[in-house]
């Protein structure tokens, strides 16, 4: 089968969504399908640029390529699912969150001006049309599916995707909490730093790059965390697997996250996840006292939770092993069977 996987590209930015799209192509190819990644650069500001760029996808003709038909397209993230195809499948990682739950928050994009309010509605209408055309509609988490249903009235099947392939292993439960995330305000890494400021025994390793790095380093400096917080920047897969293998626990608490692969990656290393009660998608697999600890989005509570795992590493192990059972059930074989069915 010839499959075009559609994903937007934000030049010079790479994160979970990009890894997911690349991996999906690889996994399809590994099952004897002809698969190709189709991308279009995406810039969502200023003003109506978000619609212009979404419209670019509408002009693509992916019904065939080089005289041979493309059997189906799999679109992933806004605005790639605006693409037209008679056999369009959409596996939604993200809608354009600024038009939904991030609206009127610090992370929002649209002002109170009538034109901006209408622009937000236009994005929602676009979603309703584009997602409504899908022959099958999947969402990576219940959180995403619920948001799609609320905003468009469309029912999406929940289908989490497996995390990236890494040499996952467990080398014990060390003395640091690991953050694996893009350094972006929405990922709320500052909360972990504030927790470290409250608990002198808490060591933190922050991986990744992003626009929030300077601010986060400033917080670490201001709170006197030098020596207890390490910013690694972007690291390769083997370094990441090594950090997962050695950490005490993994911190992952974005604001109302859609899905996030990080908890699954932590689980595959048998590590518990520290998250917050408003984190959204991660709460579908991180259960307090079973696969990790869920606290209020409050630095004191988070510091207390990290301290509990430090003092009771056997709990960290039990939670991590329970998580592994969940992560092991999410396989590419099962996902691709459903996607192409």
């Amino acid at each position, binding site marked *: 089968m010839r499959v075009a996987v559609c994903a937007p590209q934000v030049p010079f930015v790479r994160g979970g969504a990009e890894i997911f799209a690349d991996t999906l192509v690889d996994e399809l190819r590994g099952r004897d399908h002809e698969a190709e990644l189709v991308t279009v650069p995406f810039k969502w500001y200023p003003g109506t640029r978000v619609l212009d760029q979404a419209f670019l996808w509408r002009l693509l003709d992916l019904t065939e390529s080089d005289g041979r038909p493309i059997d189906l397209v799999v679109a992933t993230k806004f605005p790639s699912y605006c693409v037209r195809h008679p056999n369009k499948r959409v596996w939604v990682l993200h809608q354009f969150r600024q038009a939904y739950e991030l609206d009127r928050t610090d992370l929002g994009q649209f002002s109170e001006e009538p*034109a901006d309010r209408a622009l937000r509605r236009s994005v929602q209408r*676009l979603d309703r049309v584009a997602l409504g055309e899908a022959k099958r509609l999947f969402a990576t988490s219940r959180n995403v599916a619920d948001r799609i249903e609320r905003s468009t009235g469309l029912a999406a099947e929940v289908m989490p995707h497996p995390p990236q392939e890494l040499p996952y292993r467990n080398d014990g439960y060390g003395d640091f909490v690991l953050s694996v995330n893009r350094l972006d305000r929405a990922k709320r890494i500052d909360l972990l730093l504030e927790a470290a400021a409250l608990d002198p025994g808490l060591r933190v390793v922050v991986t990744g790059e992003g626009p929030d790095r300077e601010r986060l380093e400033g917080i670490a400096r201001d709170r006197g965390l030098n020596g207890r917080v390490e910013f690694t920047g972007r690291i390769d897969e083997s370094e990441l697997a090594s950090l997962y293998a050695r950490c005490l626990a993994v911190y992952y608490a974005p604001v109302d996250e859609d899905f996030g692969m990080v908890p699954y990656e932590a689980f595959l290393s048998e590590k518990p996840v520290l998250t917050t009660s408003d984190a959204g998608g991660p709460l579908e697999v991180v259960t307090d006292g079973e696969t990790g600890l869920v606290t209020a989005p409050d630095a004191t509570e988070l510091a207390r939770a990290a301290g509990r795992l430090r003092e009771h590493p056997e709990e960290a192990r039990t939670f991590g092993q329970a998580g592994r059972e969940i992560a092991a059930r999410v396989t590419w074989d099962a996902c691709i069977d459903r996607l192409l069915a």
Partner: protein
Amino acid sequence: MPPERSGIADYSAHLLPALAERLDVVVARRRRRPPRADVALYHVGNNPDAHGWIVDALRKRPGVVVLHDFVLHHLVAGLTIGRRDGHGYLDAMEREGGVVGRLLGHGVLDKRIPPLWESRPEDFHLAGEVLDLATGLIVHSRHVEERARAAGYEGPIWRIPHPAWEHAPVAPAEIGGSPLIGSFGNVNASKRIPQLLEAFGRLRRDRPDARLLLVGAVSPGFDLERRLQRLGLSGEGITREAYVEEDRLWALMAACDVCVNLRSPTMGETSGSVIRLLSLGKPVVVSDVGWFAELPDEVALKIPIDAHETESLYAALELLARDDGARTAMSSAARELVRREHDLGRTAELYVAALEQAAGGEAVADAVLGDVSRAATDVGIEPGSPEAAELARRLAEVELGR
């Protein structure tokens, strides 16, 4: 708005607090200067006393119209003939019905034919002027949306369900009858009361314990007593209440096993009574017309308006009288429908979406079309070319065009 007594006044009062939680809302009042706002919203129904001044305001400032009725003949007659503007009425009739319409209008003015708003409202809706002035339409049903499009309306239309009322659990009024069948609304021919009385009379021959509760004012010229006498129902099996206050209305509705809400002709209206009944989980029997025909089959038995109307109605009442399972299934489907479609918060959200689009949508469309046409021009796509038409088609597909 209340204290005016109309379904639309109730609707507006019900919706307003939920809207005000989400938007800055200023209520325009009769004979007051219209407030400044980003967008004006006009509730228009078919009653010239209640809505004439609203159409006057709409003429001064076009805006979004909530079209509660599609047929506005009575309203237009009030705004023209009622203001001694016969020419205005003739013009409205000609606009819609051509020369024939104008001639019929003359017949009305000269009292040679009965008023068309009573005898043939469906044939001459006279909604044209309001549609011309509306920058967008909010409607409650596909029926009204389709009629507006058929009348040539090209602006945006938002279909927003009528919100249900939240009510505290209510103790049913103590009225006998097994089954107790309720009818709520004006008692007249267009509510198909003659057909209902005949069907009920027949039902009662098989089921002497059956009782019909008729709640609502009897319209002038409708001789209810004579009809009851003729059917042998006078004093037998009928309970009458005229206009009732809201609390009493809920209690009476709660007492019923089955409710009937028929009409023909329809002006395209939605029934607040039916919404209330569905929220109470009452099985309803309705006419298979307009908005009523759009109710899911699981919640309503629909009676076609044809030569067998009375027979069909009797069969529906008999079915619901004998089949507890059917009543129970319809009851739970009705509650689910109200929860899913008619939630007040959902209605208010849909209003906000519509009003935000109405207020800023032009600017968004201008910007997107400007960007796309500039890019098209840059690569040599000429206006009017097949490529430009393709671009327009794609924009329209995702509702980014005009």
